[in-house]
């Protein structure tokens, strides 16, 4: 497995830990088995900086976004981009007829399938695996699996944009917009730029870079970034706010106008209408 797959194991380990809490934000019964072999070791390696609570808060934020958007919009086509060890297709309640596409590279998908099969996991909706290299053209593989760009879509891009360059992150949003019928939605997360430049982040960021998974992209102006790339923010939160892990975040939520604050953005957006 490549370096990004270890990141997927790390996320799974974080979800496994969350699932055992009395006040768990979600329960992922498969996460522990998906975290092997390195996930729990990476929790220690990347400790500090609020990452564990952030992973949990983000997971729940996106769970809620999926539930709300599908209920309100009637969208029946959900795409998890760089799904990693995500088990939402196996643990969430899905409206009848929902198709869930999980896009990731072939090795990861095969390994995940092997482990979930061994656990006897049954998807709770029409789940479709899409093996694709996200650094190349992947939309054809998605369409070959049944994705229909003429139907509205909910895109989920969890923990993905960090690993992209500015150009790649903007390109991803434009690509999603170009494949989105009117009424499509997007839910994802973005790092703050200040966080990536903070001297107090340096040790952690250096560790990630040494492990082959550097964090690169971030912005402190998420609304502008989305607008410039075909999307309109409908809900923007930071961890610790209501609906985003209030009471579980070990830091103050900094007012938006406070300079120098390290931001983590949790975002719901809709496709911008052509103007």
């Amino acid at each position, binding site marked *: 497995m490549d370096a990004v797959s270890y990141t997927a194991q790390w996320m799974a380990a974080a979800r496994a830990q969350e699932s055992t809490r009395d006040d768990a934000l979600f329960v992922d019964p498969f996460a522990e088995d998906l975290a092997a072999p390195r996930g729990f070791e990476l929790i220690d390696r990347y400790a500090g900086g*609020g990452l564990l609570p952030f992973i949990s808060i983000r997971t729940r934020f996106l769970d809620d976004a999926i539930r709300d958007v599908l209920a309100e919009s009637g969208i029946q086509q959900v795409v998890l981009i760089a799904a990693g060890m995500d088990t939402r297709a196996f643990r969430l309640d899905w409206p009848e007829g929902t198709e869930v596409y999980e896009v990731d590279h072939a090795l990861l998908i095969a390994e995940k399938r092997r482990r979930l099969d061994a656990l006897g996991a049954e998807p709770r909706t029409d789940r479709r695996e899409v093996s694709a290299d996200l650094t190349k053209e992947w939309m054809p593989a998605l369409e070959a699996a049944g994705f229909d760009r003429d139907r509205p879509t909910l895109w989920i891009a969890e923990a993905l944009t960090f690993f992209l360059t500015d150009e790649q992150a903007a390109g991803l949003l434009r690509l999603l917009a170009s494949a989105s019928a009117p009424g499509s939605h997007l839910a994802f997360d973005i790092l703050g730029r200040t966080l990536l430049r903070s001297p107090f982040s340096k040790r952690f960021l250096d560790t990630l870079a040494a492990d082959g998974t550097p964090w690169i992209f971030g912005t402190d102006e998420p609304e502008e970034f989305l607008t410039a790339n075909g999307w309109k923010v409908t809900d923007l939160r930071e961890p610790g706010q209501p609906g985003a892990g209030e009471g579980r975040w070990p830091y103050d939520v900094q007012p938006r106008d406070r300079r120098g604050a390290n931001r983590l953005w949790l975002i719901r957006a809709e496709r911008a209408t052509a103007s």
Partner: protein
Amino acid sequence: MSSAGIDKVRDWILGRHPDRTELAADVDLIESRLVDSLAFVELVYTIEDAAGVEIDFDTIDIEDFQTLATIEKAFFA
């Protein structure tokens, strides 16, 4: 008088770490993970409040924030 300000900074750090009761002036705040990247902005504001200064984030020198001693030297001397 000059020690009152740094005491506020020390109290803020200890307040975040209930398992600690004291903090020596030479403890490395970053190495020891007493202050991490997300808490850093709160540290800066705590220093600003205690010292009555404004700190420019664009020209921050991390050396000034390494220990209570360096913070005292940089902002409370």
